Structures are given as C-alpha cells and as structure tokens.
C-alpha cells in the first residue's frame, strides 16, 4: 500500500495519553477514538491497512483541529500536520463537504477574493514600508473590515496592498493541503518582507509554509512597537476585559502572553477560565459540525457570563464570529471585539 501519512510523524506518538485531558472532543465523549491518541491509533491502522480509510471520516470531522494536543505532547507529535494529511486523504470527491466546496470556490480564485473585498469597506491601499505588509484575510475582509482598518490606522508604517490572495489555511485544513501550501507561497511572493495578520489561524498556516520569521500576528507586532495606550473607559470607569486565545496562535505559534499584556494596558484584565481552550469555531467547524461546535462552546459562554465582562477580545475572526453568535443566543451582554479594534479605542 502506498504511504498515506508521514510515517515518521506517526512513529513519534508513544501512546502515553498525556494529550487526553487537553482535548475538547475527548472531554465531551470520554471515548478513546475521539482523543488525539485514539485518532493517531486509527491513522496508524489505516496506514498499515487494517482499517479502511473511510472509517476515519467521522473522527476527522469531529476533531476541531485546535491542536491543543500539541503543546502538551512531550514527544513532539505534530498532530496538526497529521490531521491535515488525514483530511487530504479523506475529504476528496464525494466526501468533500459541500460547504467546503463552496468556500473553496470563493477564496480559491482572484475574482472571489475581489468580490469579498468589494462588498466591504476595508483598509485603503497604500505604499509604506515595502518590507512590511498587512494581510487582509479572506472572510475577514467581508465580515470584519473594521479590523484591518484599525490595524492599518495603528501601524501607518505598514503597506496595504489590496491585490492579495487568501493564505490557503482553509484549503490546508480541509483536505487540500498542497493547494493550501501553494496559496501561502503565492501570498508570500505577493507581499514582500514581514506579513502582519490579524488572524491567528492565518498566521500559523502562513508561517508554517513561508517561515516563522516572516509572519507576525498583530499582538506580536504591536508588542514590538513602543506605543502606549490608555485605559478604555465605559460610563466613566475602566473596562473589564478578557481574552479568547486563538488555538493556532497559541498551540501552533506559542503566542499567549502578548495579547494579555496589551489587554492589561487597556483595561482591567480578567483571565477567562480555559481561555486557551477552543471556542468551537475552529475554522469551518462551526459550519460543518454545528451541534458539536455548540457543545464545545457552551461552558465558555457560561464562564464569560459569570465574569460580567464588558469585552471579550479575540485575535482571530472565526472566534469573533462564534462568540458573537453564541453570546447573543445566550443573551449575554459582553461585547466581542478584535484586539486591534480595542487597541484603536485605547489610542484615540
């Protein structure tokens, strides 16, 4: 049988189980097959031919791809890569979810990206430092144009180029690994020098392809600038604010302190319990696995409610969308805002 998974990556796992407590889907079910270790066991069975690949479909869909299993793994298993490989093997032809097919169509070509941009007033084209570029994102352009506007305003030294593609994270995470990598490479060529992004998910994918040194997520970039912000006020008092980590920013790139430090300057910072745990947005997951996505987020909604926060800051557009939807549904008053927008409020 031809090699499907990178054998060396499968070999790394020693089945110790250290990753089980960190995995949100294992927490939900307690079932070995819904744990990182169990999924790797299944991948091995597929690799050795004792299990038909189709059997992996359900679990490869149930897995959030949040990569919480990676930083806790002492053996250095690159689970995220294995999952991308699994989806590449499985989510082909009839198995490719329809929603994914639609999304690919939009972000996979120039016209689609242009349309996404045209529909919304995002940051204006400008040529500043040629070695610093702002990434506009794909759906972020459409859904949250104010984020890139805020980032552009805060960092006038950064160039904004509207003719830019999508980073390909969506493709890479949903069964088109090679295409996803190619898109990242193209984006890396379009935008020279350091690329600054307001999306943790994009940052992690892009950096895995074009190099960690060429990518800076917004909070990382902002921390290197020596700019001061003042406390954001509501009704004459300082805001209470918490953070929802971006999984890939945290687990893929190890960025956790920067956004917290910035928030401490902007308001009274409150750590949300399990802030590093996935909110269930997980890229396209909230569309593909609606019920599970809501199960994953439900505890978080309760936690946020209990803390009586003014704002939850996010560092990735998918998390914004998920938390806006779910907090509204639960009638929680806390507002969800991207970190860059909150920084903009603190620099007025």
């Amino acid at each position, binding site marked *: 049988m031809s090699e499907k998974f990178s054998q060396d990556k499968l070999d790394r796992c*020693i089945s110790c189980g250290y990753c089980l407590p960190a995995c949100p889907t294992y927490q939900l079910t307690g079932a070995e097959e819904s744990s990182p270790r169990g999924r790797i066991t299944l991948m091995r069975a597929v690799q050795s031919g004792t299990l038909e690949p189709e059997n992996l479909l359900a679990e490869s869909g149930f897995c959030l791809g949040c990569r919480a299993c990676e930083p806790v793994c002492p053996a250095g298993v690159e689970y995220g890569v294995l999952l991308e490989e699994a989806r590449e093997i499985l989510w082909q032809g009839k198995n490719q979810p329809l929603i994914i097919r639609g999304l690919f169509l939009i972000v996979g070509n120039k016209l689609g990206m242009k349309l996404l941009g045209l529909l919304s007033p995002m940051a204006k084209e400008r040529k500043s430092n040629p070695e610093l570029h702002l990434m506009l994102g794909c759906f972020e352009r459409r859904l949250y144009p104010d984020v890139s506007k805020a980032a552009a305003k805060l960092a006038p030294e950064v160039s904004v180029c509207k003719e830019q593609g999508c980073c390909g994270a969506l493709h890479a995470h949903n069964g088109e690994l090679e295409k996803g990598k190619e898109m990242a490479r193209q984006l890396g060529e379009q935008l020279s020098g350091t690329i600054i992004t307001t999306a943790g998910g994009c940052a992690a994918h892009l950096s895995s392809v074009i190099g960690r040194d060429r990518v800076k997520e917004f909070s990382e970039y902002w921390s290197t600038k020596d700019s001061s912000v003042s406390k954001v006020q509501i009704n004459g008092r300082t805001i209470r604010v918490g953070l929802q980590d971006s999984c890939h920013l945290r687990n893929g790139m190890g960025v956790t302190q920067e956004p917290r430090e910035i928030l401490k300057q902007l308001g009274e910072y409150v750590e949300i319990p399990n802030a590093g745990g996935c909110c269930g947005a997980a890229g396209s997951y909230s569309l593909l696995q609606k019920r599970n996505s809501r199960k994953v987020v439900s505890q978080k909604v309760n936690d946020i409610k209990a803390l009586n926060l003014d704002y939850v800051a996010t560092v990735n557009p998918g998390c914004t969308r998920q938390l806006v939807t779910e907090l509204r549904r639960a009638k929680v008053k806390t507002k969800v805002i991207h970190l860059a927008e909150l920084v903009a409020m603190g620099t007025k």
Partner: protein
Amino acid sequence: MIKDLQSLIGAENVRSDSVALSAYSHDATPLFNGLPEVIVTPQSTSDVVKIVKYAAQTKTPIIPRGAGSNLCAATVPLKGGIVLSLTSMNKVLEVNKAEMLAVVQPGVTNLELDQLVEKENLRFVPDPGSRNVSTIGGNVATSAGGLRGLKYGTTKNYILGLEAVLGTGEVVRTGGRLVKDVAGYDVTRLLVGSEGTLAVFTEITVALVPRPTDSKYGVAYFDDLAAAAACVDSIISSGVLPSTLEFLDNTCLVAVEEFANLGLDIKAGALLLFGDDGEGDVVAQTVEKMAEIAKKASGIRGVTLAQDVAAAEALLYARRCSLPALARLGTLSILEDIAVPRPAMAAVVKRIEAIGEKHHLRIGTFGHAGDGNLHPTIVINKDDAEEVVKAEKALKEIFALAIEFNGTITGEHGVGSAKLPFLEKKVGKANMDLQRSIKSVFDPANILNPNRLGS
C-alpha cells in the same frame, strides 16, 4: 453479545464499530496490540455487576481499563473480549477533611483528585509520571509509584478501602475508612496491584495527608550515573529521608532539555534531582544538607538550587516527561522498570551501560534513585529487525541483572502481558501456584483480564 450487552446497560454504553475497536487495541506499551470485540462504558456499580455476570455466564474475557496508560500491556485485548472502560465513572463522592480521606469512583484522574483535595490543604500522595491522565482505578490496580516513594511510599500505602466486583459478579467491600482495622485478611492490600485480574474496583477510599506548606528542589550534575547513584547512597546513609531523589543519565538529560528548554547542563553525564517537602526551615535544612553532601561527592560537576516554586515545578515536570522526551530519539522505545536494593544501584547502572555497549544499543536510563527503581529505556528503529532482536536480548540480560542483585523485574509498572514470561524466575514456582489459586477463588470463571497475573 452486542445486543445482550445493549439491553443490559443501554445501547449508548456499548460500542462495537470498527473505529472504536481499533482505538482500544492499544495501551501505552509498544509492540502489543489486539482488537477487542466490544467496548462498554458502565455508569454505575450495578452496570459493572451486570456486565461481569454476563461475561461469567458466557465465558467472555473482560479487560478493565482506566486511561490505558500502563506500560506492561495490561489492557491490550490480545484475545478479543469486552473492554470495560471505567472513565465514565469519574465522580469524587466525598472529601473528608476531618477523617483525611476521599471516596472516589475509579475513573477520576490522579491529578483531578489531587487538585480537588488541594482546596482543603490536603494531598493525594501517589504521583506517577502519568498523573494527568492515569485514573485512580488504574493506579490502585498497578499500585502506581511516583516521585515521592522514598519518604511517602506508593499507592498501596494510601488505599483504605475498596468496593469491588468479583469475577462472579458479587460485590465486596474491603477495608473501610480506618487507619487501623485488622478484622480479617487484608483483602484490600491483596487487591491493590492485582492488575484487573481479581476484581473490578467501583469505589475507592483513599487516605490523604496534610499538604506540605513548603518544598525545595535542587539539581546536582555528575560525571556519570554511577557517581549520582553513589551520592544517593551517601545522602540516605547520612540520615536524611527526602521526598525526592530522581536521576537521569546524559542521553535522557539531552532529550529532556530539548523538549523543556530549562537550561540544564547537557554536557554532564548525569543529573540528580533532589528535593523535599514539609515545613519551612526543616525543608530548607534538609535540602541544604543534600546539596552539601552532593558538593563533596566524587564525580560531582556542580550543584544548583531551584530559585522558586515555578522553577522546581518545571524540573519535576521535565523529569516526568523523560520517557516521551527520550522517545523522540527513535521510532520505538522499550522502557524497563527494574528495582534493586539502593546500595547496588551504582554497580547495576554500570552493568546496564555495558549491556548497551555490548549490543550497540542506545539505552537511556532514568529513575527513582531513592527507591532503587531504574527505567533503562532502549531506543531503537522499529523497522530494523536486527536491532529489535538485539533489544530483546538486552532486556533479558537486564532482568537477569536485577534478579542477580536481589532486585525485581518490575518496580511499579506491573506485569501485564509484557513481563508475565519472566515472573516465575522472580517469584518461584510455589508462589506462582499460590497466585493461580488465589485467582481461581476471586474469579472462578477466569474472565477477569485472563492470561495475565494468576495464569
């Protein structure tokens, strides 16, 4: 069988699809795997009783399973059967500060329990390296050790009572809530370490101790492991009884540093992690005294004390991660678990090194030096058939070595399927027969984890 089990405990608690079966075909032991026929997740003692009675009638093997983190193939379904996964029975039923005990269901993880009792300033002492994942049920069934064995003992010293389902489906209660209780045979102690072969634990009463207010740790670097072992001897013969004396050889040290980035001296031949816990000054004095002894030891390269709790925690965490970190070096790591009388340790580690050299194998050794418990780990390439054969030879030699020095073939990981072939050498024929007789009383139908202990 699937239908029968479904009607007994509910369809939602019975899984037999090929995905689930495949996922439960392994535990943390390399080289062993086998498919079960069904996985059941009982929610209560009465569910367990129903399943066991059914299995006894139909002569179906049952494999009790916690987190599946054991390292002796004690939960691999080598001959099919029912995997009895106890992770859903995971409630802490009681934490009693006045009696210093807790009553838990078997699926609670070691770390969850300890974190919960911490709120009452209490501690659950046993702390196996796997504590974030392994369950109390699994800990009891393997009498798990950890990093505090020297001063505090292991799981067996902290189990007051059990509710257990025998192989007949009968429920027995053993022991109770008392420190003193000699009413009858000590069945509790017999069940501790029984590896799922005598009974299924459904409720466990554990003893807790006051949580020490202070702790302090330090590291000493040596030219080689034997020098570190000799230093451990000097420390203990000086009359100090610290909670922690752990060591790693250079191979482990380098691997751990690669993962944890603590700034360890990777040029050293061995690292000794020493530490103690208790009250304020006493702890500081003990640790100071150990540091002084280490400084004067032969083969010493340097001694440093951890500056704060975070630094100490990082060291302990790094030590717990020795095995997975080592595993990065190859595609297969076979971990051993011998224990020898402490004074023999220096000689034994030298002999282990010699075995590695003789077979041209990479063996990294770490262990609970205070307990004489060594984990020589052979790291090989699993596709290299020749290397696999060499590793098997080396393992046999290591077991023989342990027995030669009045030691044991397993200090804390258990026998399971992995060490069963070597057990008689260690305990002798009469003892083996006795174990078989015991097994037949608890489990006359021979359905509880058959072909392992007691077979």
